């Protein structure tokens, strides 16, 4: 039976949690990456490598890579820079490994690619000409801790097609390797004035059903939304959730109608409401929602989970894993019905990804 690996990125380095096939006993290793702040880390199933996007206050941004499951690490920022157009790269915010390459979403807004396992990089696109492009790199229009492109969602069957999230602006799709783009925000809601209805939306997390590649879900700043046409249109499915705000989301690996979110208080706290931890699940594409909290703390638990903080594995009965801003990791081996705490004292967690290892 394959073992399970959790790749846990934190504000002070990367950690690995490993379990045997039953996912009950976990062994922690780390911190890796010299305890640099890690924004997102992924495991590339095809190559077996781990990639971690990091940005040191002192030594700048780069991507750490390990080809031996964390035994050794190398850092590179070769090519991770903009040329003479005034853009400055402050951080790599999101990583995606698919189709033999690694894509990196950056702040300022841009996408870099590596075709040699994150050793060297080249600029793929800054989404020039897209609506919002003239404003999104202006600090006056950015939230604190701007992430630029926090996420890139690849199409599983088509290497030339992927979706990029521009923080505070919305989703853009390319079908030609980033040469041209199309905004994909129709039907989304904004609670603030927007000049151009094509953009101006705050998409926190975008996921795709592994069994229906036209079925996308997103947790937005104002609501949870579903698309049945590859992002060309969106329908809000927030009704039934305790808040419209959250960051993390996950799509079930075998059922296109099952989807998970972690609603948070939308105010400054951005923690689970009322100090009671819960993950919420729909099994009918958002018509109804169930609160899943068995085994999670139900008092005085002011937990936050960031946009990459929830992961789901591909077991027949999937396991779910989430990491909190205060360093706990919770796991479920029964599709979220019950939970246990598998790490308690990590630094603040920015991302959790799961991999099965043969």
């Amino acid at each position, binding site marked *: 039976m394959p073992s399970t690996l959790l790749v846990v990125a934190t504000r002070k380095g990367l950690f690995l949690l490993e379990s045997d096939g039953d996912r009950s006993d976990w062994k922690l290793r780390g911190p890796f990456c*010299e305890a640099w702040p890690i924004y997102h880390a992924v495991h590339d199933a095809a190559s077996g490598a781990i990639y971690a996007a990091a940005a*040191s*206050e*002192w*030594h*700048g941004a*780069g991507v750490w890579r390990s080809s031996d499951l964390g035994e050794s690490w190398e*850092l*590179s*920022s*070769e090519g991770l*820079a*903009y040329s003479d157009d005034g853009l*400055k*790269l402050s951080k790599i915010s999101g990583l995606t490994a698919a189709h033999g390459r690694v894509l990196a979403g950056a702040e300022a807004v841009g996408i870099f690619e590596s075709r040699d396992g994150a050793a060297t990089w080249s600029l793929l696109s800054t989404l020039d000409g897209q609506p919002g492009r003239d404003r999104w790199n202006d600090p006056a229009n950015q939230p604190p801790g701007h992430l630029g492109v926090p996420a890139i969602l690849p199409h599983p069957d088509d290497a030339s097609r992927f979706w990029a999230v521009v923080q505070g602006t919305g989703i853009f799709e390319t079908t030609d390797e980033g040469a041209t783009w199309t905004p994909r925000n129709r039907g989304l809601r904004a609670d603030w004035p927007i000049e151009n209805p094509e953009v101006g939306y705050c998409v926190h997390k975008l996921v795709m059903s592994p069994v229906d590649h036209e079925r996308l879900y997103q947790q937005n700043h104002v609501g949870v939304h579903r698309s049945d046409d590859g992002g060309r249109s969106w329908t809000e499915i927030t009704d039934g959730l305790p808040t419209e705000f959250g960051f993390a989301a996950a799509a079930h690996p075998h059922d296109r109608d099952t989807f998970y979110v972690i609603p948070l208080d939308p105010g400054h706290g951005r923690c689970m409401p009322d100090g009671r931890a819960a993950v919420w699940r729909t099994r009918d594409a958002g018509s109804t929602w169930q609160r899943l909290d068995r085994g999670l703390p139900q008092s005085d638990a002011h937990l936050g989970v960031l946009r990459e903080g929830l992961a789901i594995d591909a077991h027949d009965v999937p396991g779910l894993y989430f990491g909190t801003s205060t360093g706990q990791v919770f796991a479920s081996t029964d599709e979220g019905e019950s939970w246990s705490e598998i790490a308690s004292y990590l630094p603040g967690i920015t991302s959790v990804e799961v991999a099965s290892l043969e």
Partner: protein
Amino acid sequence: MADLHLPSTLPPLFRDLPRRLEVEAATVDEAIDVLDERWPGLRDRLCEPGAALRPHINVYVDRQRAELGTALVARSRVDVIAAISGG
């Protein structure tokens, strides 16, 4: 030869890079070039693209705040400091 002192955060990033070493260079910039030639990528850890020191990297030559163009003389002491920040 300048007497170069590096911050503790740097040697873990480069194989066999010591905290202290002697470098033959006429300026701070040249000293970083010498290091980058032997330890490729080191310049990126100290400098922004476009040849400026990173915001939280401070360099002192003989205890005076320096920039990339600051001249070095024989036996200059060069301290590269990762400025105190964070928690």
